[in-house]
Each structure stands twice: as C-alpha cells, then as structure tokens.
C-alpha cells in the first residue's frame, strides 16, 4: 500500500475522533510549546545580560582590589605604561554608590563614579556641551562634574549650574550626549566626578580600576599579564578580582546554558508523558478497532499494512501535536517575554528539535501498539465484539 494512502487513512481516523485526538495531542502540544517558550525566554534573558555587559565595554578590563598590599594609582599607571602594547588607557573608578543629586528643589538618586581624564576615552564618552574632567581637576580635587543627559533633563540643569551631590556643591562642566535612550538606569543616568574628589568625600581609598585594551583579540592575554602583576603587587590571587565583559559574558553563557538544559529537561519530561498518552490511546484504538483489523486482514492486509496504518496514525498525531505546539510556543514566547521584561526570540534550532522529537515520540510510542495490531490473529479479530 502506498504511503500517501496510509497518510490519508491516518488523517481520516484522527479526524473521526476529534476530541480524543486533540486531548492525546495536548501532552505533545504542551511539551513542545514549553520547550520553545523556555528556550526563547532563557535566550532573551541571556541576551539581556550580555548586552548590559557590552555596555561596560567589551574591550575594558575592570579590576577590584579587595585586600592585601595597597595598589596605588601610580602603581597602575606605571604598569599600564610598561605594557603599552596591551593597555592604551587606565582610570581609577571610585564609586560613591547611589548618591542623591539635587538642584534647588528636585532630587534623584543615581550612580556616581569618580574617574580620571582618560575615562572619556575608555567609556567612549561624547559630550553634548562643555568639557570632560581634566588632569588638573583630579590633581586639585575640584568639585566639578559631568552629567548624563537624563540627569540634565530631569533636574533641569545646564552647563555652569551648580548641583548638590550628597550635600556637596558641584559645578556642571560637561553634559554627555544622549546615547542610550535617555532613560533612568541607562548609560545616560550617570554622573562623573574627579576620582580624587570622590575618594576624599567618601573617605575611601582607590581600589577599583578600569583599563582599556585597544585590540579585542589581546584581551585575554592582557588580563593574564594584569593578573600576574597583581598577584605580585597584592601578595595573593585572592586579594583582587579581574572582570572583563568577555569573561562575564562567558560565565553568564555557561550559566544560562545549564539553566536551559535543566528547563528543557523538565519540558522533556512533559514530552515523555505526552508520548505515553499517545501510546495509551493507540492501545485503546487498537482494541476498539480489533474487528476492523480482522476485516482488513481477511481481505488481504499484510502485517506491515496494519503496522504502517497504526504507526503512521501515531506519528501523524504526535507530529500534528508538535506543529500545534510550535505554533503555541512561537505565539506565546514574545508576549510572555514582554511580560517578564525580556526580548524572547523563537529559536529555529529549538523549533526543529522539538518537531523532530515529537515525530520521534510518535514512532517510539506508536510502535508497540502498532505491532500488537499487526500481530492480531484474523479469526479472533473477526470474532471480536
């Protein structure tokens, strides 16, 4: 018998029992949809994190010195100069954490960091007005600041105006060009101060640095050299941490990879349950249609004709379920992602794997009932009521 005939026969039989077929498919639909949605969401989550790391600058290396011997700004400067082939700029990075910014009446909280004049190059800062912090600002601990466009807009301050940061007066000497949509918590919601000023007001030592590696290919080598230097300078590799966007991205990718494996595994269990559902209903269907099988056998159906009839029915059921699952998964991924603040994308790999698995489930779980049907004795089957 031709394959096309078997397919038509299978579709007819599935359509003859619409509700039952749909309920049978439901397990597969849910499983496939879950795989696609979860892969999409984890993908969106991972993209989110990766892009926020990219904002840190792909070719910068951040250093945190936590304990051990002090590493001064001069030490880092010397190191960067010595390895000029890797490092083209450095800046201390003194964070005030979330500081309160106030003009006369309005106030907001934002991330304030103390940097030197090279931060302009390292963070690729472009100014809409005024100038960036200069060497002399740092040397003489001037109370000047460069603000992001979001802050300028929110607090309605312009060049030359005075604002208060944690109560201290600062003059606005530069306003950053809008770069990141001009919203809160974006790259436009920042304040830069001279690092010396920040360190003194915060009564803190300089312990964080940011170094620029011009050549992205050298970034791993550069962080190795830096690490060797800091082991010597601080006394132990436990006394500092080196964070590059690259390394963080790698870590996050590893993490989300594991996460998606676990989630897909859970979704896989639901596919398995769906497969068992298919097997169950196929066994019922074989029993119900024992007489039909007997009739078909008596007029000349061979074992493989009966086998392929039921196997194809199982495969068509689960493949149809798979397709519906893909439709549901693809349809829900994006809105669910939005709900969770993620940009979920439907992964073609996940779609093709999910479809392949669902068709495979039809074969695996349809095989046993189909074999049972094929092996029925025609006399007993004909006599079955």
């Amino acid at each position, binding site marked *: *018998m031709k394959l096309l005939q078997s397919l038509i026969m299978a579709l007819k039989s599935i359509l003859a029992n619409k509700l039952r077929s749909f309920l049978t498919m439901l397990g597969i639909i849910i499983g496939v949809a879950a795989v696609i949605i979860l892969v999409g969401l984890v993908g969106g989550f991972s993209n989110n994190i990766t892009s926020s790391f990219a904002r840190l600058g792909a070719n910068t290396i951040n250093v945190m010195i936590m304990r051990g011997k002090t590493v001064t700004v001069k030490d880092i400067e010397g190191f960067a100069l010595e390895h000029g082939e890797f490092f083209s700029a450095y800046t201390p990075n003194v964070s005030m954490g979330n500081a309160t910014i106030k003009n006369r009446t309005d106030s907001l909280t934002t991330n304030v960091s103390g940097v030197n004049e090279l931060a302009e190059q390292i963070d690729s800062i472009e100014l809409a007005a005024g100038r960036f912090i200069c060497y002399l600002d740092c040397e003489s601990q001037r109370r000047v600041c460069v603000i992001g466009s979001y802050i300028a807009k929110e607090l309605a301050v312009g060049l030359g105006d005075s604002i208060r940061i944690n109560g201290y007066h600062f003059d606005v000497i530069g306003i950053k060009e809008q770069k990141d949509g001009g919203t809160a918590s974006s790259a436009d919601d920042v304040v830069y101060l001279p690092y010396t000023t920040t360190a003194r007001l915060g009564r803190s030592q300089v312990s964080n640095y940011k170094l620029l590696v011009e050549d992205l290919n050298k970034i791993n080598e550069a962080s190795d050299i830096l690490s060797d230097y800091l082991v010597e300078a601080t006394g132990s590799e436990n006394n500092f941490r080196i964070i590059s966007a690259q390394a963080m991205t790698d870590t996050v990718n590893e993490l989300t990879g594991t996460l998606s494996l676990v989630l897909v595994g859970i979704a896989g269990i639901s596919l398995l349950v769906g497969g068992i559902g298919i097997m169950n209903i196929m066994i019922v269907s074989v029993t119900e249609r024992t007489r039909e099988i007997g009739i*078909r056998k008596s007029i000349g159906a061979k074992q493989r004709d009966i086998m392929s009839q039921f196997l194809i029915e199982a495969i068509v059921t689960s493949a149809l379920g798979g397709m519906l699952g893909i439709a549901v998964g693809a349809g829900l991924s994006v809105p669910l992602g939005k709900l969770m603040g993620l940009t979920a994308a439907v992964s073609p790999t996940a779609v093709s794997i999910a479809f392949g698995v669902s068709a495979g489930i039809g074969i695996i779980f349809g095989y046993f009932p189909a074999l049972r049907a094929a092996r029925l004795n025609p006399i007993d089957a004909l006599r079955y009521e």
Partner: protein
Amino acid sequence: MIDFCDVYKIYQMGDYAVHALDGVSLHIEEGEFVSIVGASGSGKSTCMNIIGCLDEPSYGQYILNGRDVSHLSSNELANIRNRMLGFVFQQYNLIAKLNVLENVELPLLYQGVSSAERHARACESLARVDLSDKLKNLPSQLSGGQQQRVSIARALVSQPKVILADEPTGALDSKTGQDVINLLRQLNQEGHTIVLITHEENLAVQAKRMVRLSDGKIVEQCVMENSASF
C-alpha cells in the same frame, strides 16, 4: 481448485484434545457451487477458516489452485486471501467509517492498484450487485440486504478464484436472504466457484452439491438434481 487431503484441526482444551476437523477429504472443482452444512459445533466454521486461509490445518494438506497452502507465512496467506479468495460474512463485515465505494476498493488498495483502476473496478463490481446509486453512502445508511450485496461486491472486486460465503443470510429475513442466495447462484452461473457455509438446509440444497459435516467428519455428500434447473 480446492483439495483437502485428510485434514485435521485439533484444539487443545485443557487436558483433552478437541477434533474440530477429524480427517476431512474434500475436492471442489472450478465452477462448482458447494454448500457445507452442519449443526453448530460440527466443524463447518473451522473448515471455512481453513479454506479461507485464515487458519491452517494441524495435519493434512490443503491445496488451493494447485499450490499447497497448508503451512505458509502470515504474509503469504494474506496475499492468497487478497488475490484468490473473496469473503462474504454473516455480519457483512464492512468498515463502518468507509463509504460503500471505499469498502469495495479496499482489497485492491492492499494489492497496490492505482486509484483510477480501483475506482473503475469497484464501480463495475457494485454495478454487478445493483448498487451503483449508493457509492457514497456509509454502510449504516443501507439495509441489511444492501450491505450484504456490498460485501459481495467487495468479494468480487479482486476477481478471486473462490467466493466463500459464511452464513451470508444469517442476519437477513428470509426474502432478502433468498435474494442473496439467488445472487450467489447467478455468480456461479457466470463461472465463479462458490462455497456456501450454512446451517439452514433449505439454503444448502440450492447449491449444486451439498456436503454435510458432523463432529468434524463428512457424513454425507450429495449432488442436487435441481441445481441445473435454476
């Protein structure tokens, strides 16, 4: 055409053996119309199952159309049922969700006949039993007599050597039952070999030859005088 040489069929029922067929030798020529008659339990159903290649003898030989079919694989038996035999059952045994035409096409489907030829041959076969106007009906929309005619059309469609009718009138009233028997007789006159299994004497005597089974043995064989007068 059909040759039974000392055929036995023995079922093991617990401790003792039941001889459903106990040394049956039977010869049926091409073009004959033979009825096999007997009370229930006489072994006629077993006989029919073996003639129909649905079952195999425990001992003895069954030669169908010159070929020993006593011990073939299930696929070879399926092939023989498909091409050499046509079945007419008491319960019609039509597939309920297929329409009349599809039911009649089914044996050809398993032969791998192309759809155009299937359609043509099924229509021809249904015309033979006067059901050309019911092609798209489902079996449930037909009367019992009509359903039995569909099953005769299905038996005819693969141009079998033998048509096996197993109590074909059992579910019909006597008038419709007689119509079915008349149809079988007509087919016989056209050259089809027919084996009719029944427990009703008045139907059995309408065949050309009657074979009586009792306790798995042939107890009587007679040629009917009236057979030519139809």
